[in-house]
């Protein structure tokens, strides 16, 4: 059994400056834009400005010519097809927590996140297409708005409310995002044919790991897409060498026979 829900570490006050929180919210929203629906013209145009590309390159993202060197309308069209192939056509990998963790649409996690949104005062509105509450883009957007709120609470000096939001974000990572986005990102990086989704997937994975470290959240990714973890790296809660039955004296005998 692998470790689950290790105790979250306290986030230092330094890392909680409103400006930084807003910057992080921006990254969540940037990633959400790739998943909520087919990337829009404005979104792509903004990503392709030299400053944005340079910033992303600094992070290690390497888009191919299929992203950087084609006319915008052509790129938008190509990504719409890639989006459909990856996320909305049969045989693809829909970016929904339910399908990733339960293999079916609209299972427990869908209802759980829907309830969480409602408790936090949100409901999903219709975009260009109907979207599921546990869709990756929506889950990322949810954290983005919580981060924005957190920043606002800090600015207004409401530390109690800020603390609650911090806990809510951590909880959401432990219960939802943390359980599937890293595995899903590795899968997406392998599956994508277009360099945009390949690189976005890489960004998603790195960002998720950074965020979890920053939040002090430790949770195992149980998405089927995760790369295989060498057995030596699997941490377990019990010593596999200890006797299973040690309630009696005989069970403690080192060389007991089970015959």
């Amino acid at each position, binding site marked *: 059994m692998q470790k689950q829900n290790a105790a979250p570490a306290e986030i230092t006050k330094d890392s909680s400056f409103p400006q930084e929180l807003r910057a992080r919210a921006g990254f969540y929203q940037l990633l959400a834009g790739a998943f909520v629906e*087919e990337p829009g013209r404005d979104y792509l145009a903004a990503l392709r400005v030299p400053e944005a590309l340079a910033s992303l390159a600094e992070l290690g993202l390497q888009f191919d010519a299929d992203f950087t060197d084609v006319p915008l309308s052509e790129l938008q*069209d190509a990504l*719409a*097809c890639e*989006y*459909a*192939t*990856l996320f*909305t*056509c*049969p*045989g*693809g*990998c*829909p970016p929904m927590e*339910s*399908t*990733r*963790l*339960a*293999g*079916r*649409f*609209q*299972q*427990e996690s*869908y*209802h759980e996140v*829907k309830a969480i949104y409602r408790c936090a005062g949100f409901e999903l509105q219709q975009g*260009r*297409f*109907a979207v*599921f509450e546990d869709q990756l883009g929506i889950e990322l957007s949810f954290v983005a708005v919580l981060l924005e709120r957190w920043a606002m609470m800090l600015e207004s000096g409401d530390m109690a409310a800020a603390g609650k939001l911090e806990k809510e974000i951590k909880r959401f990572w432990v219960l939802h995002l943390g359980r599937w986005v890293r*595995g*899903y990102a590795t*899968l*997406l990086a*392998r*599956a994508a044919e277009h360099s945009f989704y390949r690189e976005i997937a890489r960004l998603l994975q790195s960002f998720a790991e950074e965020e979890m470290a920053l939040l002090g959240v430790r949770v195992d990714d149980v*998405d*089927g*897409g995760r790369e295989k973890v060498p057995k030596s790296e699997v941490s377990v809660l019990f010593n596999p060498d200890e006797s299973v039955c040690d309630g009696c004296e005989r069970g403690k005998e080192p060389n007991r026979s089970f015959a």
Partner: protein
Amino acid sequence: MLNFKISRRAFLQASAATTAAAAASPKLLKAMEVELGGKDFNPNSYIERKSIPLTCHVCNIQDGAIAFVENGRIVKLEGNPEHVSTRGRLCAKGNSGMWYTYNPDRIMYPLKRVGARGEGKWKRITWDEALAEVAQKLDAALKEDPNTISFKYGRDRTGGVIGRFMNTLGSGSLINHTSVCESSKKIGMQATWGPDIETPDFANAKYILNFGSNIMEAAYFHNPYAQRLADGMADNKAKLVTFDVRLSNTAGRSDEWVPVFPGTDGAVALALGHVILRDNLQDSDFIETWTNVTVDELKDHYKQFTPEWASKLSGVPTETIERIAKEFATAKPATTYTYRGPAKHLYGSYNEKSCMMLSIMTGNIEVRGGYCLPRGMGWPQPQPAPPKAPKPSYTAAHPDYPLAEHGVAHVLPFHIAEGRQKVNIHFTYMDNPVYTNPGSDAVWGKLYRDEKLIPYFVSWSTVMGEETALADLILPDCMYLERWEPESMPNSLWPWLGIRQPVIKPLGETRETRIIARDIIRKLDPDGKRGMKKYWNFKDGEDYMRQHFDNIPGLKEAGGLDFLKKHGVWPIYGKLNPETGKISDKTGREIVAEFGLHKKELSASDMAGAVADKSGTIMKNGKAIGVQRKGKNYAGFPTGNRLINVRVDEWAEHGFNPMPTFKRIPWHETMKDDEMILSTYKYNVHVQSRTASVKWLAEIVHSNPAWMNAETAAKIGVKTGDLVRVESKVGHLVTKAYVNEAIHPKVIAISTGVGHWGYGRLAQLKLKTEKGGAWGAQDDPDLNNVWWEDKGVHPNQIIPVVVDPIGGSQGWYDTIVKVTKAGPNDKYGDVQASWEKHVEAYKETVRYAYNGDLHRKMHPEMAAWTGPESVKHKEGGGH
């Protein structure tokens, strides 16, 4: 202190002696399952789950079901105990129905093709864009000819929506799937006694003759009928005799399995009739009173069908025929039952009629324990309704098959290829002929890939089946647990009305069929100037249902649609008895059905203005309403003369034998020793096409090795697991052999339902290894649980088209094949067939049509027929 150190023997003695006291001890703890359903609880919180009654629609039996919903999620399905037909039981398919809804391969948005047809490249578009595109194409087609708009459906349970859609457009090119299903059964029966189906009273029968039906697991109405069959066999000690080429689970549970040579059930039935009439075991009074022939005529006609003749054809020993005939005729009440076995042959209509004649000649019609008329209920359509399309299309009213009232849809590709039917837009709904029809991909795939023949192809679908994958535009329909539909099926002796109602909201952007149709029409006729919009005047699915149900006498007083929403079915005939599993009335006794519907006397008001003709048929306003018999005015049977027509004059007009008869399949007569006949069948957990990707069902059955008799297998050196090459005149396949004793030596049987190349991850499995795997399907949590690697081999591609010239049915079980041990170049799963060879097969089968050159040769007894020129044609079709 008591001494419990007693011996085991003494303990058992004490136990036996105190049995009565133990039995008399109060028992207050009751197992929850004896409630027989209707409620369900969360196993952890014990909170009762929300229950919503509906009519199941995984297959077409239409069982009463209940969906249990917890926190907005469907968690369980079970039978509705208030449903008179299925009495709280649901089969494995019905129990798995929610996995349709949550299938990760569902289509959730309109998809527009962006690559070549079938290439698999799509773009998501909005409903508005999709509807606008369809409306623009329809507008152009309407300007040319409404009949160039064709609509082919597989399973239409919308209660009339598809027909309304096509009538609104003025197109008569509405094409069903019935010719690959049961059309010759329908035509064999309709011409004889009116309805196209029977309702046997298995529960009260003493003897049941089952021709080619796997009642207990796959036949039409298998859930309710399997229950009644079990009741009859257990409670009534009914004897069940099954004629089948294969030891199906029904044959295996029969008192007697009689293997027959394929396609000869009709001959056996005629020989059974011969014995009954020869030995004077018939019900002469019934024949003389209720049929259009005399006993003497019948006896004379049946003289030719001797047991020796039938034995030679079928392989059934003459003594078996003699014995079964006498048993059946004397064990009253008794009934026959058929499903596809007899009907799906070149002359399936003759076979069907020959089988039902046994119930007729023994007077087992409309009696308790006998062969009964179907009981069903109808519902009014929302008004105003569009008028019927002015002219049928070529395929909808085929000139070569004028008696085939249910169409000959499986030859559509050949008609289109020949230019007899022009198509501008082709719609499909809950259909998948690229997989289900004879020739499958070699024929229908060829058609749908050809943009010259099908310029624009729109599939209303829930999943990417083999057909939908070839569409230009996919409109995402919703699943049965998410939509409204009216229902009634003649699957019990108690008529009922039911509904399907949404258990949850449709997922994604899927829409109900009626909403899709409405929205297309509204896009085409936004201001109503075309005169179409007025036929689609409803707010939503529930509003449409109210227009169906709120004014039906009886139901209206009970609450109309609100009653159905609460109970799922109407009427409620009684309560499910936990002791018997049957429906009991208020007195605790099992409810009793009404019999003798044909003997219902007409009232004085019915007779006002009515006159009886020479034969006794009572006519009123130009319509036969009953029949006079023995001084009484009876309702009779719903035929043109209110009698059972043993002699069908309309058949004679087309040069077919009007009396019960049998025609051997010509190519079976010339079979070589090393040839066999390919038969197909259906597993109890699958429908023809739609269930292969349903979790649970796919795990239970996912492959289909070919059944072969041990004797035959030994001749070609094949044992179980060996690869065999099965070659027909149109192609070949390579599959695994399953060698056993439970099949006729001249038959190889391969099930349908598996072997998909579309339909999603669980059906295709290739997603585990090929490119799809990289998309993530291989990492799907369910696919990680897939322990099998064999998805089966689908046989339809190598089955050539055959048309029953009377009923229009596909001859599914007529294909001659050569079976050999697979060679070094044969691989498991190879399937190859040729369009050109299928075209040749089509040309060959048309020769048997009433106007074909082989018709006369096949009917020497009709030498006096004056030929096809003498036939009065109904209004012909055209595009």
